[in-house]
């Protein structure tokens, strides 16, 4: 057998192995193996992520510039916190104006429970919007749990292993979140886009939407809690001849600076699939 034939055979075996992995992954039979293989990689990733943060500080500007930068950072952080508080207060006011009963229900709800996790990596593919965090099923995390920061909704957990989880960002092209405009209460769906932005689509032509409007999760569909901040409207795309309009959003969360996130561990997503798959009852 010539060298080229041997090489072709080896490559054929490798391609076959890759295709088998793809098929096993699609059928969900790879979770256990992936969890085992991820343990050493996650440990390595955690230490590299820590070292990377230290390296970033090493290259920070020195002297007065550093003090000024620290002051700016502190003020920016305070600004973000105040804006988040402001948004929350306005949301509460809107809730009060809508239905007292809903507010009573909201008061009666137990507070959310959170788990804090470090972001230890981003997706290795630039085509995908996922991050990896350092908590997994051992810490009680599970698929579909919402992930937030004080700025707003980050995404949702899509995979967990014992000690790490993969979070799909709301800006991923496959992400869709039912959303509501805070002021007008009009509803749409916030879709992620390839460029890492958010678009509020399926808004009716009559919807009152203007740049600067705040967009929150609506809770419809049961996949996310209601009232989490998604972003603000930066532009509106409306054509008179179209049935729907859409808005371009500026995400509330700065996804390039995610370091620590909170996972809402007591949120129970509603599984609507049995309702959707139930065949219609025959007419009497």
């Amino acid at each position, binding site marked *: 057998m010539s060298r080229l034939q041997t*090489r072709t055979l080896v490559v054929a075996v490798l391609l076959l192995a890759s295709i088998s*992995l793809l098929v096993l992954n699609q059928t969900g039979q790879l979770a256990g193996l992936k969890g085992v293989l991820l343990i050493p990689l996650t440990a390595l990733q955690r230490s590299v992520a820590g070292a990377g943060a230290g390296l970033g500080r090493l290259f920070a500007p020195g002297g007065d510039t550093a003090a000024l930068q620290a002051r700016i950072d502190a003020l920016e952080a305070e600004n973000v916190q105040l804006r988040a508080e402001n948004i929350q207060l306005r949301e509460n006011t809107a809730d009060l104006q809508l239905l007292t009963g809903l507010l009573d229900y909201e008061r009666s709800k137990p507070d959310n429970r959170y788990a804090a996790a470090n972001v230890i990596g981003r997706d290795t593919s*630039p085509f995908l919007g996922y991050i990896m965090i350092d908590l997994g099923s051992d810490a009680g995390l599970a698929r579909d749990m919402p992930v937030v920061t004080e700025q707003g909704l980050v995404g949702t957990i899509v995979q967990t292993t014992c000690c790490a989880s993969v979070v799909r960002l709301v800006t991923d092209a496959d992400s869709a979140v039912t959303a509501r405009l805070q002021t007008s209460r009009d509803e749409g769906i916030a879709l992620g886009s390839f460029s890492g932005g958010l678009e509020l689509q399926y808004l009716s032509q009559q919807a009152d939407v203007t740049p600067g409007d705040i967009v929150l999760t609506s809770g419809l569909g049961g996949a996310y809690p209601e009232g989490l901040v998604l972003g603000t409207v930066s532009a509106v795309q409306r054509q008179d001849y179209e049935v729907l309009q859409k808005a371009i959003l500026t995400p509330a969360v700065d996804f390039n600076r995610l370091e620590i996130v909170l996972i809402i561990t007591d949120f129970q997503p509603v599984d609507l699939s049995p309702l959707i798959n139930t065949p219609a009852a025959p007419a009497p």
Partner: protein
Amino acid sequence: MSTYLLGLPLLAVAAVLQATVFSRLHLVGGTVDLVLLLALSWTLIGEWQGGPVWGFIGGLCLDLLSGGPVGASALSLVAVAYLASLTEARFYRSHVLLPLATVLLGTVLYHLVYLTLLAATGHTVSWLASLSQVTLPAVLLNTILMLPVYHALRWAHRLLHPAPVTI
């Protein structure tokens, strides 16, 4: 044997670096594909069979650290490294243009195969935006970094396989 001795730790570290460091350093939407550079360089150094094996190992590490389908990067990198290995005995190996031309075509092919697999496994793929905002900048970044990576690996390869001394 050096394919595994050097490859396994190096490719694992490269994949982790890609997830932690290089994913933050991007030009438009494109990032350096460090594992691709390593697999292509190892192939062009003369490890015609080891290159695709590096592609598989490195691709698997990338897939494990990604939310994408497991096997997609592995398959893409094996295919690209194999095509690069077909240059054996066709070109003068130490010509400076060979690694540069290989990484240019290799990056485009790697991204095309990967995007096809993403689309085939149900992910939303925006072809035009992907190719213009990610692939083109990645071609530029990979081409810039190819020669340092190639020469570093060639140096390591010489350490592992010293030329026999004839008296």
